[in-house]
């Protein structure tokens, strides 16, 4: 089996929830040894809490089980390929073990507000004293500086603050937020990117650095194209309309919750669409002009809907694609799991799940390195699952010491004793 590109990299990970955990999963997928550190008493909130009754509705249909905190699809979707340990960083003993771990690490990652690491006594300066070329990745909601730096933030508040929610919504309708906490994922992509860039820089210079991702700025960066547009303030929710392509929309098809997406990239696409639909209104020569189509976009969308709403989405997809048009039936997640393209590429592989949950198809590695590909090696780490094995291996602690630490609730898995 080929080596993986980050196989020689060890990361001590303090991040939680989606954004940070996803960033670290992306790096673990490339082979990094990621050691996820959680508090013994306060698990990662994406686990849904120690008790199912207080948690998010995030469990498999057969229930939360004895250890619900290891059965959340939220946590299990972003913590594969990692080792899970617990340490109480607020105690001298926990902090000391953490700093010992840092000595052999390449990077430390966290997504607290800026004051937290400082208050714990493990800020960048403290980490550098333990390991001079350490890289620290910080992913606070609003960055490490500026007036909002200590404000809390999660995807649902970052999205309105970034302008994304302002633009997301039906054309002419009210702003909306995404159906998932999408800015978390965007921050995760940027977090993994930042750490990789810091690793490349360290290979070139020998020096580590402190890199930061403002989740707020990461989301704003996704909207750069709108800043090319004069009259930004006049923009509102756009539906599926595009700054360049007309029409570009999702149209109702025959059947409940059935929809077809259609894009017209250029005049040739427009002629293909007109030929498929056959509506005399759309045959007007003036509509070969994109500017004219923009002016009459409402009218065009109504004509397309009149055609699509009487036809099955799958049939339209086939007909339009055969005609050379970008078109697709809108897939729900059951459809995504059955996608022919993803099956052919092997991207959705059945992977082991923790806690007796049946194996499930999960997305593969985000980028395919042909010579040294990443791999899925471990199911999602349970809360503190690897505490003894990791601390024994890396810190040389013997069984007796580990048992004592566990009995006192300093390390271990699941709720603390008592």
């Amino acid at each position: 089996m080929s080596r993986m590109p980050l196989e020689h990299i060890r990361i001590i990970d303090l991040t939680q929830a989606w954004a940070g955990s996803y960033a670290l999963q992306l790096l673990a997928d490339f082979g990094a040894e990621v050691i996820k550190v959680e508090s013994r008493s306060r698990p990662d909130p994406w686990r849904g809490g120690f008790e199912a009754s207080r948690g998010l509705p995030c469990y498999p249909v057969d229930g939360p089980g004895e250890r619900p905190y290891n059965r959340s699809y939220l946590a299990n979707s972003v913590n594969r390929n990692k080792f899970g340990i617990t340490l109480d960083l607020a105690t001298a003993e926990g902090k000391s073990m953490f700093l010992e771990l840092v000595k052999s690490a390449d990077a430390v990652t966290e997504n607290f507000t800026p004051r937290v690491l400082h208050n714990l006594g493990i800020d960048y300066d403290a980490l550098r004293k333990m390991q001079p070329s350490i890289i620290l990745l910080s992913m606070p909601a609003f960055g490490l500086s500026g007036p909002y730096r200590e404000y809390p933030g999660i995807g649902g508040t970052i999205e309105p603050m970034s302008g994304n929610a302002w633009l997301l919504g039906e054309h002419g309708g009210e702003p909306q937020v995404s159906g998932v906490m999408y800015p978390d994922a965007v921050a995760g992509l940027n977090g993994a990117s930042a750490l990789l860039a810091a690793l490349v820089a360290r290979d070139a210079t020998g020096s580590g650095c402190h890199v930061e991702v403002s989740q707020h700025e990461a989301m704003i960066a996704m909207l750069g194209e709108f800043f090319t547009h004069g009259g930004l303030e006049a923009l509102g929710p756009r539906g599926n309309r595009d700054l360049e392509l007309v029409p570009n929309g999702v149209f109702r098809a025959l059947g409940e919750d059935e929809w077809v997406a259609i894009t017209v990239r250029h005049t040739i696409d427009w002629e293909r669409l007109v030929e498929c639909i056959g509506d005399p209104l759309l045959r007007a020569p003036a509509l070969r002009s994109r500017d004219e189509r923009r002016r009459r976009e409402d009218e065009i969308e109504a004509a397309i809907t009149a055609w699509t709403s009487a036809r099955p989405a799958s049939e339209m997809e086939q007909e339009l694609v055969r005609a050379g048009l970008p078109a697709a039936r809108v897939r729900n997640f059951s459809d995504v799991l059955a996608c022919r393209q993803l099956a052919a590429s092997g991207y959705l592989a059945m992977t082991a799940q923790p806690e007796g949950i049946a194996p499930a198809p999960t997305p593969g590695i985000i980028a395919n390195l042909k010579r040294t590909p990443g791999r899925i090696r471990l199911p999602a780490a349970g809360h503190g699952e690897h505490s003894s094995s990791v601390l024994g291996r890396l810190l040389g602690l013997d069984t007796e010491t580990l048992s004592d630490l566990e009995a006192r609730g300093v390390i271990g898995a699941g709720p603390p004793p008592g």
Partner: protein
Amino acid sequence: MSITLLNSLKAVQIGTGIKAGFCGKLLVDAGAEVIKLDLPDAAPADHFSPWLDRGKASVVLDWRISEGYELLRRLLDTVDLVISDLDNPQDAATVERLAAEQPRVVYTALSDLGRQGPFADRPSSDLIVSALSGMCYINGEAGRPPLREPGNQTAIVAALAGFMGALAALVDRSQSGLGQAVEVSALEAMVNVLSPSVLQCSYQNGAPFRRQTADGFLFDCADGKVSVIISSQSSWDTILEIWGIVPDPNEADRFTEKARRANMESIRRLFAPVLLSKTRREVFEELCLVRVPCGMLLNPGELPSDKHLIARGSFDAVPWSSTAAAAGPFPGPGFRIAGEIPTTERCLPRPGEDTARLLAPLLAGTGSPAQ
């Protein structure tokens, strides 16, 4: 805006799509030298160019003819990275072949739906990737049209995936001395982003579905809307305390920790008298100071004048061009070196303006001047 992490790297970006354009922009943002390479008949710079191309060098070269082919070979011998989203299979194959001749080069190919497989030859767009990946399906209201994220975000996600793949290959190169090819499809990258929903579908028999009301946790206030996330009992108790709200005992069962999610309309009515008397900023500052996550609903046009983003230097302070005052300022990168404000002054190249400067040193023996 750029930082200095990758200033030892040199890259060539080939292709006119947003996928390669944004991946090249990420490299520029991180300090790399990026040469945007176009064929003479490539589409002219569009209105996205000021967003994507500032700070890049621009070279125009016809590698379909023998002299150009040889020049491209020599150019690729001088770089670390090649980023491509060429959709012409012959052009893509040529570039890939030449990149593969250079053992240290990392060649990253970006596509919408994959370069092999049943969808490889399908026409595509950001909307189609969004529709196929589940992203569209999950946005919007139940029974109403599914919605993509605004703009071309599947292309940007693919660009970020390509950036990560290329850098992971460089980390490997530092150990092995060898480059390699990297492939990214926007469809696969978006499905990866949606990993929680993909797993939820398996765990919960087909979920998730679009919400009944898509405004979710947005609340009206005096001058717009705010989002308020009540993720814990302590957040709920804090809000009631600071706003002096006492729920009607007859409605108490709607406001328990388990019931609140299903009773957002009751919560709206409960909060309305307070929220409608306060501005977005008043609510945002008040709640964040007591650690309750809150966000102001902002028009993107409001962002460059936001006090926090000004303090952080998050937008270009310098106009990108004296001839196009309507565009920009543009948002900076999603990551930076802590404590640094990214530099802002960099130019938008004219198409081909760096051709002679960058190709002249490579000309000896090709028998032809650069275009």
